[in-house]
């Protein structure tokens, strides 16, 4: 049954009301961080990732390669935020700083906090978020209770800081994104085989990026290419627009 215009208005008002309750009354004009890819940004509520909010990403499988993709994805988001220090709450000590620097997160923007347990990670994250002077706080946690997630979300709103949470697989049969959470967006990443190059070598990494859930928007998924040195993700080039083809055409023209 099509809705009449008065019903439409009423529905919109109700939606606005619900949104106001959901994020403690700070909906209007909240800043967003676009990916810079029209294809992605138009699917996101607000045209990008809300800056003062909690975002989660998890690997699609317990494979370490997928987890490394998640790390790069979160690092690229943190790197694209405006200038400021990023706090990274570690739970394991295998993060390699030169690799992060290549995703655009320079060493002078990053401070590591080495935590022993998940609770410590969450406490450090909350403290960093409430301070309000950081650009982003990244944390690595296995399990996250609903209440703990809500605390992080509130702290992120209060401090106006982006909270990024990497959810690690604790057991092979427990999907970290299965239980509900208070995060504004939840992402799941998996590695995909990259483009075959004309010469021997490895091309730019390619991921299947799934937006599993977002508040105020629909789920969606894309195939994206790994971040470059300026932390920009990219859409894979269509075969006709590929740079090697363009070079071929130039050669033909010349």
């Amino acid at each position, binding site marked *: 049954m099509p809705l009449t215009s008065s019903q439409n208005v009423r529905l919109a008002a109700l939606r606005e009301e619900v949104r106001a309750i959901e994020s403690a009354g700070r909906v209007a004009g909240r800043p967003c961080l676009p990916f810079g890819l029209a294809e992605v940004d138009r699917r996101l509520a607000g045209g990008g990732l809300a800056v003062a909010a909690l975002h989660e990403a998890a690997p699609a499988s317990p494979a370490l390669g997928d987890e490394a993709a998640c790390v790069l994805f979160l690092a690229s988001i943190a790197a694209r935020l405006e200038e400021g220090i990023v706090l990274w709450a570690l739970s394991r000590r295998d993060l390699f700083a030169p690799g992060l620097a290549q995703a655009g997160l320079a060493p002078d923007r990053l401070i590591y906090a080495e935590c022993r347990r998940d609770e410590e990670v969450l406490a450090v994250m909350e403290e*960093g978020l409430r301070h309000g002077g950081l650009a982003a706080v990244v944390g690595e946690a296995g399990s996250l209770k609903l209440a703990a997630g809500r605390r992080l979300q509130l702290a992120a709103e209060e401090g106006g800081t982006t909270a990024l949470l990497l959810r690690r697989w604790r057991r092979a049969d427990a999907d970290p994104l299965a239980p509900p959470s208070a995060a504004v967006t939840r992402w799941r990443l998996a590695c995909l085989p990259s483009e075959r190059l004309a010469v*021997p*070598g490895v091309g730019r990494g390619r991921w299947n990026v799934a937006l599993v859930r977002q508040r105020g928007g629909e789920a969606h998924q894309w195939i994206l290419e790994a971040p470059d040195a300026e932390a920009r993700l990219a859409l894979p080039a269509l075969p006709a627009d590929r740079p090697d083809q363009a070079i071929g055409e130039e050669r033909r023209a010349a």
Partner: protein
Amino acid sequence: MAVTQARMLVPGLDVRDSDPEGDGAWLARLGLLAARRWTPRAAVSGPDGLWLDLSGVAHLFGGERRMADRILAYCARLGFSARIAVAGSAGAAHALARFGAGPLILCPPGGEAAALAPLPLAALRLDEPTLAAARRLGLETIADLVAKPRAPLQRRFGRSLLTRLDQALGRAGEPFDPIVPVDPPSILLRFVEPIGTAEAIAEAMAEAMRRLVRRLEQEGLAVRRLDFACERVDGETQIVGVGTARATRDGPHLLRLLGARIETIEPGFGIECVRLTAARVEPLGPQPIEGGLAGERPAPDIVPLIDRLAGRLGSRRLYRASAVESDVPERSVRRVPPLAATAAWPSWPRPVRLLSPPERIDNVVALLPDQPPRRFSWRGRAYRVRQADGPERIHGEWWKRKGEAEAVRDYFQVEDEAGQRFWLFRRGDGEDSRTGDLSWYLHGLFG
């Protein structure tokens, strides 16, 4: 003597660069210790000595000889070979300690002239031109000088020679610039009744902090490390300490850092007195106000956050990563304090996760000497390589370890059929067996 000549005479000679600043710092520390422990009047003398004024203190240590023996033993325990001379004038003690025979010389009162007579003129702290001129005139020892009439000497050498001589013989005075030990600012609070509750401790802490901050403001100092010591009724002392990333005398901030530690204090039967000590202080003048006149928002100060996190985690677990000039991946990162400057890495492809230690991979099929693997198995799973890049050859650092003198690692970046990217390396260059045993390892993962 040239170093090569010395090495030829003594095989295995340990040669180190001279470090006058480091030596000076050690000497200053030793002087400070002397001023605290042995005598109220101690001073540094030149780049290699200390003057201790023993007037009225030697009997406290059982006489001059026993005191000197104790100081010598103490220096030997620290690893210094020291020489001590005790004399009636600073100049004589200076000369005898450096040019006398044996590590310990006690000059009897009034015996300075006799003790100094056989010493060379260099013992008198003269400058080089004066010494050279004296040598030309045939003056070798102090005895030669004492025997000469004073007026021609003064005409020939100026006033300085005679002044030094008089100072050594105790005829002229000499200024003495003693080291004044500075005690760290501290506040002591004693209670009428022992306290035991967290609220009472917090109240005492706040009061001590108020007084300490006032005192620091007067002296223009700021705190880097703060110790809060509680003395209990049973004689136990409980100390909690906090450090700050930058010198500060912001009372509420310091109080918040200390307050987080109250729960670690065990009051037992009660605390009789508390002492708040600024264990490490730095001078801190007036600070400029952040932000410009145009009204732009000042950059938020993250130092308080760093202090709080360091208090929660421990300062060693909060750090920045900085580059080290090493191509070996596990040595290329160094931890620096969270506010220190960092250096960036060269932009070779590097993984985001580094396994430590590298994990052995099996069943590797690869062509020697420089082809990437076609397949391998790791953690019980087989992987088939779809694309690969490499090798990037990294040589062992022979200047660090002998075992690495010939070691070589060939790194490959490979992608499997699912798109996972691994960083593998092979020990050895595939041609010379001395460079490695051709075993394969997985060292990291790219995203």
